């Protein structure tokens, strides 16, 4: 059966309950949800807020590819990914991933792998505004 995929970019707060509900099914014994949230401290430095920007059409297509590959590799029933764009306060949800599968191991592995690959391939960037007023786009080496 074809996996259900739901990919979204949004400037509104992410409803993670709705996202999780979207992947639930009587065919599945496992649902794993992951939330990436805005952290206050990075190596001792204090963040005031974050901004996310994206090359939106490509970010959506890369997220879809990622979801398709994970669904195929781990035999998932459904994958839902929503990434927030724009300015986010401390503690807000920047990204939410929910996956469902018949058994838990595949769901855990898939959610973890989706996050790892996302951070390497999906054209979304975050800009830190630090407590001292300095701003900085984050571009991992």
């Amino acid at each position, binding site marked *: 059966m074809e996996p259900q995929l739901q990919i979204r970019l949004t400037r509104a707060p992410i409803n993670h309950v709705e996202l999780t509900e979207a992947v639930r099914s009587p065919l599945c014994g496992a649902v794993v949800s992951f939330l*990436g949230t805005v952290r206050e401290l990075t190596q001792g430095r204090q963040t005031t807020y974050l901004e*996310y*920007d*994206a*090359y939106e*059409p*490509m*970010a959506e*297509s890369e997220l879809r590819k990622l979801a398709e590959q994970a669904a195929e590799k781990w035999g998932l029933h459904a994958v839902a990914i929503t*990434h927030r764009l724009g300015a986010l306060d401390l503690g807000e949800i*920047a*990204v939410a991933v929910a996956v469902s599968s018949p058994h838990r191991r595949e769901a855990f592995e898939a959610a973890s792998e989706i*996050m790892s690959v*996302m*951070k*390497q*391939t*999906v*054209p*979304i*960037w*975050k*800009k830190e505004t630090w407590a001292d007023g300095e701003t900085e*786009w*984050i*571009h*991992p*080496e």
Partner: protein
Amino acid sequence: MTVTVLCFARLKELVGSGRVTLELPADASVKDLHRELFQQFPAVESLAGQLLVAVNGEYASDDAAIPAGAEVACFPPVSGG
């Protein structure tokens, strides 16, 4: 050919705009695009070796050709999630 390049994040800051127009030879590759970008915007050299290029929404290697009329985007390493 004239190529419009969409720029993001730190690159957008360095060029001062979300899109720049470059004049490239008809058979230009991604590498040629980098070179022209550095020439027109010397500050961008600080990102040399880091910049990624997408042609029509797909990542393109340094040797890939840039077809006329393609949508081209250039950006530093991603940091979503």
